[in-house]
């Protein structure tokens, strides 16, 4: 005879152990994130002020603000998206809507996956060789944006492909059924439905791009600039690089410590805002384009 009571108890105990373990792991991940955030916030908050985000650095970057670095990062994000977004979306449309399953598709997918696996410093080196030297853009916002764009490309392609895949086939069939051509169907039906997810993917890649240091190291980033860039062929400062500089090779590292944490806080804030925005947009559009 099986002792029902005992079996029940051991089941419950196992359940409790498993549940507790998973819970512990889950919460530790949250704890790690919270610790990092708290650390940055506590250390950096005192540095944050309106002047900090609106003024040029002063006295060998130990005082003053990080305005040019913020502006530089915004330019780079904008530039990289102008490059990566259209190309990535078009590539994904081609992949998902046009190429039939088979060798070509597998090959392109393998290559995009590999592209996203390349270390970002290699992108930086490649960007320097191609954009800075070969094409003669010099250390410039253009060269940096293109390099960051290359880095973002596989992310944009992947996200867009997933977004297109999520569009229920019956929408396509319904459109074809009304005599619409493929391009009409993609333009009028598929893309509008996939749009929220595509945008979400783009914003997430913005978060990614804005934090990258290695690709801009040799292609655009300046140690210090007394003025803002005025054209795409100018160098620019950028938040992640600025953070690196004032923590490792500033004129007075100890004195500029608060500025470093302040910069980190601003950078994290930008990334977090991007992620929150992506979530909000997904929710907003998700309600409008509800699948039933």
């Amino acid at each position: 005879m099986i002792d029902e009571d005992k079996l029940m108890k051991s089941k419950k105990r196992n359940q409790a152990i498993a549940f507790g373990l998973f819970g512990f792991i889950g919460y530790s991940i949250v704890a790690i994130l919270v610790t990092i955030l708290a650390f940055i916030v506590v250390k950096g908050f005192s540095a944050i002020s309106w002047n900090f985000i609106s003024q040029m650095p002063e006295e060998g970057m130990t005082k003053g603000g990080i305005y040019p670095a913020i502006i530089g990062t915004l330019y780079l994000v904008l530039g990289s998206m102008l490059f990566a977004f259209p190309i990535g979306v078009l590539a994904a449309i081609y992949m998902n809507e046009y190429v039939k399953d088979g060798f070509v598709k597998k090959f392109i997918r393998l290559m995009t996956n590999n592209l996203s696996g390349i270390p970002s410093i290699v992108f930086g080196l490649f960007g320097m060789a191609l954009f800075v030297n070969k094409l003669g853009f010099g250390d410039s916002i253009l060269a940096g944006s293109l390099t960051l764009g290359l880095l973002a490309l596989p992310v944009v392609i992947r996200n867009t492909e997933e977004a297109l895949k999520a569009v229920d086939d019956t929408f396509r069939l319904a459109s074809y059924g009304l005599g619409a051509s493929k391009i009409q169907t993609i333009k009028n039906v598929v893309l509008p439905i996939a749009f929220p997810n595509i945008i979400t993917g783009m914003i997430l890649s913005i978060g990614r791009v804005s934090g990258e240091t290695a690709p801009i190291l040799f292609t655009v980033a300046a140690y210090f600039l007394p003025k803002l860039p005025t054209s795409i062929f100018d160098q620019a400062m950028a938040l992640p690089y600025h953070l690196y500089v004032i923590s490792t090779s500033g004129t007075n590292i100890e004195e500029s410590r608060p500025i470093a944490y302040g910069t980190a806080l601003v950078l994290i804030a930008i990334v977090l805002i991007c992620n929150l925005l992506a979530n909000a947009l997904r929710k907003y559009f998700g309600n409008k384009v509800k699948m039933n």
Partner: protein
Amino acid sequence: MHKIESKNLDFFYGTQHALKNINLAIEENTVTALIGPSGCGKSTFLRLFNRMNDLIANTKLTGEILIDNKDIYAKGVNVDALRKQTGMVFQKPNPFPKSIFENVAYGLKVNGISDSKIIEERVETSIKQVALWDEVKDKLKKSAFELSGGQQQRLCIARALAIQPSIILMDEPTSALDPISTSKIEELIFELKSKYTIVIVTHNMQQAARVSDSTAFFYLGELVEYSATKELFTNPKVERTQNYITGRFG
């Protein structure tokens, strides 16, 4: 004259023989029900009439499907024009994420009609045809998703009617709907029959009996029996049909 005719038709998905030597003729302005257990090939068969299966890779078709006596799989057939002639309604209501008006106008616009007067007229006529006009006339600009499931399905039928097809293909059009919405769609099918040739795939035996003039029973890719609906349901000639309609298998 036969509106649709299938002659010695075989269809393959890769190596899978999905339809086996189907010979069947459908009269104009009638409702034909295709019934049979899941995987019997009835939906595949339906989708051959507007060449929807073209979209699936690695398929093969032999034999002929004639619509108005023309082989729609012959070389040089304009598939878009063919699809314009056959409206299709799907299992789940699938209005586009557009306004009610734009949903119905979509088929007109993609077919090159840009005169807003004609579009407005056709949209109104089509929505009236599906008895939805009174329910939506004040909110044509609102999203189609705000409608109930049954209303959405009627809107999808209106969308199909707007391009003025002569054939309407319905793939289990009520399987996702409640009984009241279902009976509304069935009434609608009955009314539409005077103007259109309707082919409907259904899992619901009672529905087939209620709405159709002829019924075709498919099993494992074969057309087992095809006759007048009354005949098929009261006096089936094949034992397998008898077993299926009485619920002994399937």
